[in-house]
């Protein structure tokens, strides 16, 4: 079930298992991921054009999604994080719809297994 989830979202299940050890634990972390606020923070910081806050939020989201081994999603987050780190708000805003789309898909998929 969890393995299927990782396939659907183009994540790395093997990596997730070495880090979190078993499906039960992965589920626990999936739950934490659902509660994590960094995506919302990123969204609102971009809305108010606060590059610094947006960077912090993106940075956190990056760490979290990498730790969860959400490989495909993490890649998009890395991209936006680097743009924000460099202060390129415009570029970041261009990438954000892709991040947003992937995030929503991810949340939907996760909710299916919970």
């Amino acid at each position: 079930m969890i393995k299927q989830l990782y396939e659907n979202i183009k994540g790395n299940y093997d990596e997730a298992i070495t880090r979190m050890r078993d499906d039960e634990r992965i589920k626990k972390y999936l739950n934490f991921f659902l509660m994590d606020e960094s995506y919302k923070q990123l969204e609102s910081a971009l809305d108010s054009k606060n590059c610094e806050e947006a960077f912090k939020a993106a940075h956190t989201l990056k760490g979290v999604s990498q730790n969860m081994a959400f490989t495909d999603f993490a890649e998009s987050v890395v991209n936006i994080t680097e743009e924000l780190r460099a202060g390129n708000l415009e570029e970041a805003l261009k990438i954000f719809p892709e991040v947003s789309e992937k995030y929503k898909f991810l949340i939907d998929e996760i909710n299916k297994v919970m």
Partner: protein
Amino acid sequence: MEKERNTLLIADDVLINREMLKDIFEDEYDILEASNGQEAIKILDEKKDEIVLLFLDLIMPEKTGLDVMVHMSLHGMMETIPVIMITGEATVESDVRAYELGASDIIYKPFEPAVVIRRAKNIIELFRHRISIEKELALKTEQLRENQKKLEQSNDFLINALSSVVEFRSLESGEHVQRVKKFTKILLKYWQALYPEYGFTDAQIELMTNASALHDIGKIAIPDSILMKPGKLTDEEYAEMKKHTIYGCQLLENFKQEENEFYRYCYDICRYHHERANGKGYPDGLVEDEIPVWAQVVSIVDVYDALVSKRVYKDSFSIDDAIKMIHNGECGIFSQKLLECFDAARDELIANTDKPE
């Protein structure tokens, strides 16, 4: 008793990151968590003696990871609590800064549990080792000081025991030696004050004082018939008695220690404490400054104590009479400097002299 250190502090604002580290370590360690820098600082201040390792995220709200490390440096925690930085990526600047501030290691997200465990354990062991070595060192230093003190005490004991051997044989109590030591020290203190050009240090005076206890050690080789004779000695007997200065040196030479200050004081005092400034003393007939100061001091002290004490062959003199006799040259001629020193110390000597019965 200090509480056993076995607590990890995980400071990261992201719950998932904290939980992952907690999962890895909670079987073996007590875990404390901080979700921002300010909280981390508070926990560190309260529990610094229990924490074996800090996992520290760089970017956190309130205070950053760097702020936390600055606080730790300011409060001397970096020596006892290793810090592993957790960071999303390697940027040269933040890595360099983290190491500059004393981070022991940096791990990058996403975590590899096996690597994180290995590194954490190595660092914890390293610090445990370091802390225990430092504690041991502090303990050793303390012991060393105690040993030194004990050594000094046993040295004193040995010197006193050794120097009283002769007196014990002549049925005296060993008090003469103790008094000679006491008076020698007083006179040397005055010498030090009156004649700073000699540069006597307190430590040297201590050694000279101890050495003075051995001034008559050569008497061990004098036969009972002479040593304990109640009446006046014949010329031959007196000639033999004088040899106690030489015998003392011969005894000491068996244990000669080149370059040893204490040996030199002992030797000089044994040999020259019957020399007189005008060359009329024995055994070598030295004059004035040829006689080492420490031997001169013992010579006058020895005479003074002999005069004010009762001996098998004589009654005691009053303190005033004794001082007069020393000045008149009735017990041989002492150097001017020594007499001046003796006069300067007079009140203190008298205060430390038991009144003759």
